[in-house]
C-alpha cells in the first residue's frame, strides 16, 4: 500500500494508507485530513490542495505542467521551492511520501 504522511502547519503528523493511483489530495479529502480542501475535485482549477513536499520525495515526482505551475502562484499561503498541488501527485504502489499542509488553503 502507498502511504502519505501529512504534517500540519503546527507539526502534528498523521499517516494515511492510500490506494494506488489515487492522488495525495484524494487520499486526504476522503479521510478527512484537515489542511487540504480540494474544492474542484482535482481538476486543477482551485489551488486549494497546496502542499509542501519533503525534499527527498520532491525530487522523485514527475515535473509539474505549466498549468499547475501557474495555479501555484494563486495559493492562499505563498508557494515555496517544494510546493505542489496535491491533486497532481498520483501515488504508485508502495510509494511513501511526506507532505506538510499550509496554515490555510482559502
Amino acid at each position, binding site marked *: 500500500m502507498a502511504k502519505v504522511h501529512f504534517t500540519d502547519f503546527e507539526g502534528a503528523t498523521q499517516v494515511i494508507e492510500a490506494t494506488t493511483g489515487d492522488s495525495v489530495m484524494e487520499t486526504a*479529502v476522503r479521510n*478527512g485530513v484537515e489542511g487540504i480542501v480540494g*474544492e474542484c475535485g482535482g481538476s486543477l*482549477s*482551485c489551488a486549494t490542495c497546496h502542499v509542501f513536499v519533503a525534499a527527498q520525495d520532491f525530487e522523485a515526482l514527475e515535473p509539474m505542467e505549466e498549468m499547475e505551475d501557474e*495555479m501555484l*502562484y*494563486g495559493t492562499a499561503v505563498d508557494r515555496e521551492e517544494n510546493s505542489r498541488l496535491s491533486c497532481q501527485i498520483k501515488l504508485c504502489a508502495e510509494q511513501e511520501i511526506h507532505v506538510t499542509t499550509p496554515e490555510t488553503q482559502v
Partner: protein
Amino acid sequence: MSTQTLSPSLAGADAPAPGTATGLLIIGASQSGVQLAISLRALGYTEHITLLGEEDHRPYQRPALSKEFLQDKVGSESLIFRSNDYWIQHNITLVKGERIESITPRPDGSGEAVGSSGTAYPYARLALTVGARPRLFEAPGAQLDGVVYLRSADDALKLKALAPEATDVVVIGGGFIGLEAASSLQAMGKKVTVLEYGTRLVGRAVGEDTSEYFRKQHTDRGLDIRIAARIEKIVDDGHGAVQAVRLESGEEIAAQIVLIGIGVIPNTQLGEKLGLKIDNGIVVDEHAVASDGHTIVVGDVANMPNPVPGSPSGERIRLESVNNAVEHAKVAAYSLMGQREAYAGIPWFWSNQGNMKLQIAGLSMGFDATVRREVPDKGKFTVLYYRAGHIIAADCVNAPLDFMAVKQALAAGKNINPDPASNPATQLKTLIA
C-alpha cells in the same frame, strides 16, 4: 399526508416537545449536504446528523460526470466524497435511496419527515440541500430511447452505456454541461453537433466575447455548433429509439444519442410543503435560514442575498456551483451553531471543455465595460468585467494567473486598473490597487 411516529413524545404536530427530538436531518446527500455535515463537525456540533439522499449511491461529486468520468479517465470510487469510516467516526448516518414524501414541522423548528420507504425521520433541526433537476426538453420524440440528461451518476452511467454503439451525438443546449459533454464525447470519437436555442453559447454565465471565443474554438476543433437552432422533433428510428434530430428548416442531423442540457429547475417541492417562501428557489436570508425562521436551505436550491461585498443592496441570486455549495454550507453550519458568519470569498466557477480550462471569478452581472487580454498561441483568453470603473469579474480561459489575480483583487475589495490590463504581457497582480 400520513405520518408515522417513532417516539411517543412526537405523537402529534400540536404537541411540541422541545428537547426530545434531537439531531439534524439533512435532506439531499449533495455537495452542499455533505459540506454542511462536515462543517458542523469541524465546528464542534455534537448532535446526531442524518444525511439522506434519494440516489442509491454514497454521496459523490458531480463535476467529473460530464468530463473525466464520462471518458473513463476516473472510476466511480474517485467521485466519492468521504470514506465509510469517515462518516462512522463522525457520527453521521447516511441514508441512501430514500425520497422524502412528507414533512410535519412543529413551530419550534423540529418535526418529522417520512420517506417513500415508510420510515419516519424525526428531527430537531431540518436542512434542505435538495439541489435542482434537469429542465425537461419538450418536443415530439423527447421520450425516445437514446435521449438522455446529465445530472446524476445514473445519468452518466446510462450515457456511458449508450456511447460505444453510437457514432453521432446531438447535444441540445450550449451551456456548460452541453459543451463539457460535447467535448468529452468528441474526444471519445463521436461526431457531435451542438444545438443552442439562444443567440450565443453559455449565455447565462459568460459575456458575449467569451461566448464567441468558445464558439470559434469549438468549431475549429470540429464541433458542429448551431446557434439559434430551432428543433422540430427528435426522429424515431421506427423501433422507439432516436435516429436524428429534425430542425424546423427540414434538415435532419443523424444521432443515436441526444443529450439534453438546457438548464435546471430548483427542487422547491419540499419547501412548498413546508410553506416556505418560494421565488426562483427557496428564499433564504444571509444566514441560509428560510422564511419559517428555522429551516436551513443551502446550495443550488437557495435564493439568497447576493453575497459579494459591495453588490447592490437587496439584490438576490441563486448560484449553481460547487463553490457556492461549499461556502453557503459553511454559512449555514455557523447558523446552526447559533453564530452569524458572513459568506466567505468570491463566487467562482470552472468549466473544462477539451483542452480549454475556463475559470470565472466573481459575478459579471451589471457590468458596463470589458477589457480583453489574449495570447493566441498559448490559448490564453481573458475578459475582465467592470462596473462603474471597478472590476467585478473575469472569464479566464487557460489563464490561471489572471483568474487568481482577479480573485485576489475582489477578495481584498481592490481594483485592477483597466488601461494597462489590456496588455497581456502585464501581469494583472501587479495592477491590483
